[in-house]
């Protein structure tokens, strides 16, 4: 045993560990490809169903339609009293405002926690971390009463204003971690040159933090786009519905027999998220890997 170990220390093992042989490699790929197909099959089936002639939708499990027909998209788009264009626009407005609010408010707070010295900083930082543990159900009902009293129900304000008050503490935490990695010499030098905290934040921290700001912005957008619960509670008038509420109404409406239209609108509702995923995949995956973001 000792001899074997000694000899292999001097002569490196022939097959590097961690690499698989050809057979193992084939098996791994076969398993991965099978799993990949199972994973995306439902999505592809939905897209395929959205361009199928109506009578063919549930007829086959095949992904290939016998003929391609986009009329489902037209029917779906105008299938409710309010068109899906309106729902998309509403979702877009809310998502964009949320992104702006989250990035601005969370980066302000994160800068204070990461760089400024003030009495009570550690205390507030601990409080901020603590708020991440509280499930939203606890504050849900009083918040609803508050927004109802303010006359904000049925407007976008309850969905957007909290974001400008840095209510997504998770993003603050993310940014604090990033800001701490930026060399302190930079802002110390700027301070020597007479820059105030505001200029340091604006001219040094933000430009150097584009990766973390982008991650926060992208996740904000996607989560807001997908959010169902918030709009469900606060938006009652169909003109103010988001895409998620529009879809749900479409399911419940008398036109439920219009599966083609439903799948067409479902497919469209996923398009923005899919594009973000396509363009920012690396950023999103790094964001998850390093911070363990949920979902």
């Amino acid at each position, binding site marked *: 045993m000792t001899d074997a170990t000694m000899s292999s220390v001097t002569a490196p093992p022939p097959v590097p560990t961690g690499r698989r042989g050809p057979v193992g490699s084939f098996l791994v790929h076969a398993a991965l490809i099978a799993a990949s197909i199972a994973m995306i099959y439902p999505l592809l089936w939905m897209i395929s169903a959205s361009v199928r002639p109506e009578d063919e939708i549930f007829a086959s499990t095949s992904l290939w339609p016998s003929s391609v027909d986009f009329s489902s998209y037209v029917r779906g788009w105008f299938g409710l009293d309010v068109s899906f264009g309106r729902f998309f626009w509403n979702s877009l407005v809310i998502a964009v405002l949320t992104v702006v609010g989250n990035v601005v408010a969370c980066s302000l707070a994160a800068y204070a926690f990461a760089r400024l010295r003030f009495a009570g900083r550690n205390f507030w930082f601990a409080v901020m971390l603590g708020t991440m543990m509280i*499930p939203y159900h606890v504050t849900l009902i009083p918040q*609803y009463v508050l927004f109802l009293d303010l006359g904000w129900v049925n407007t976008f304000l309850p969905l957007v204003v909290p974001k400008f008050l840095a209510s997504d503490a998770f993003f603050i935490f993310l940014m604090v971690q990033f800001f701490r990695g930026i060399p302190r010499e930079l802002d110390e030098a700027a301070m020597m040159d007479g820059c105030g905290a505001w200029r340091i934040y604006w001219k040094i921290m933000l430009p150097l933090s584009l990766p973390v700001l982008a991650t926060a912005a992208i996740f904000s957008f996607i989560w807001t786009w997908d959010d169902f619960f918030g709009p469900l509670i606060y938006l009652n008038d169909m003109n103010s519905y988001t895409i998620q509420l529009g879809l749900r109404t479409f399911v419940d409406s008398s036109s439920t027999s219009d599966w083609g239209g439903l799948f067409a609108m479902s497919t469209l*509702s996923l398009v923005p998220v899919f594009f973000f995923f396509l363009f920012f995949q690396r950023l999103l995956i790094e964001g998850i890997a390093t911070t363990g973001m949920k979902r």
Partner: protein
Amino acid sequence: MAAVQDTAVAVGTGASSRPAAQGRLARIWASHGAGYMFLLPWLIGFFGLTLGPAIASLYLSFTNFDLIRAPEWIGTANYARIATADPKFAAAVKVTFLYVVLSVPFKLAFALLVAILLDRGVRGLTVYRAIFYLPSLLGGSVAIAVLWRQLFAGDGLINSLLAQFGIEGPSWISHPDYSIWTLVVLSVWQFGSPMIIFLAGLRQIPTDMYEAASLDGASKFRQFYKITLPLLTPVIFFNAVVQTIDAFKAFTPAFIISGGTGGPINSTLFYTLYLYQEAFGNFRMGYASALAWILVLIIGLFTAFSFLTSRYWVHYDD
């Protein structure tokens, strides 16, 4: 801060009559004021949207409140009813626990298995990773829940596929014994984000440990059992806690798939769905507040329990 400094300068210069006191004020402002200026939006949010509502919610949980009349204090009656006289609460807790216990282990097992397959020397890693992660990103949306409802319908795609193997599937959605599985499968399908965290964790394990082990003749399985698994326990623990808390809070799929009812026979009545029904369907805001606090208690107890037991199976380097 430009504005802040201007103010500080203005205070300093304009106060020639009492220079000492004003100067000290300016210095205090310059060192602490800036911090609080930057923190102001968050502070307003914390008091107005978190602390204030949390206190109000605790108060409301001891009242009858229907949004129209003022809250009426009824002591612990809400909690008493939850504990003794509410079959729907019991049903919701049972369904939610079932969902957590079924979905989280399956999800983590898949995530770990795929992460290990992807970990070393797989060509096309980024493509596979993207495909496996995509459902996690789309999964929370109504479209996916709608799709799932059709896939698992009595004459839906799943049963058509089963039929090709000669299996006659049940009508998953409308049968109380099977409906929960529809939701479990949907959750497991979204194993992508724990998978990515597992992948990152696997990268941290030094390859020379495996080299040494294989030189000693340890089989792949033994290496997994003796090296990978123990060194990965912190990541497994993290994923388990995050996924479990998320599972407790699940709402959209159950709402869409059951049409908001939690049926058939309360078999998909997730806790959050019941809370929503009580608050915004029946306008029992006080009762729903009590339900919310019970949920916090359940999640808190669970988290505490996880951390207490973690010392027996989670290995940290130091």
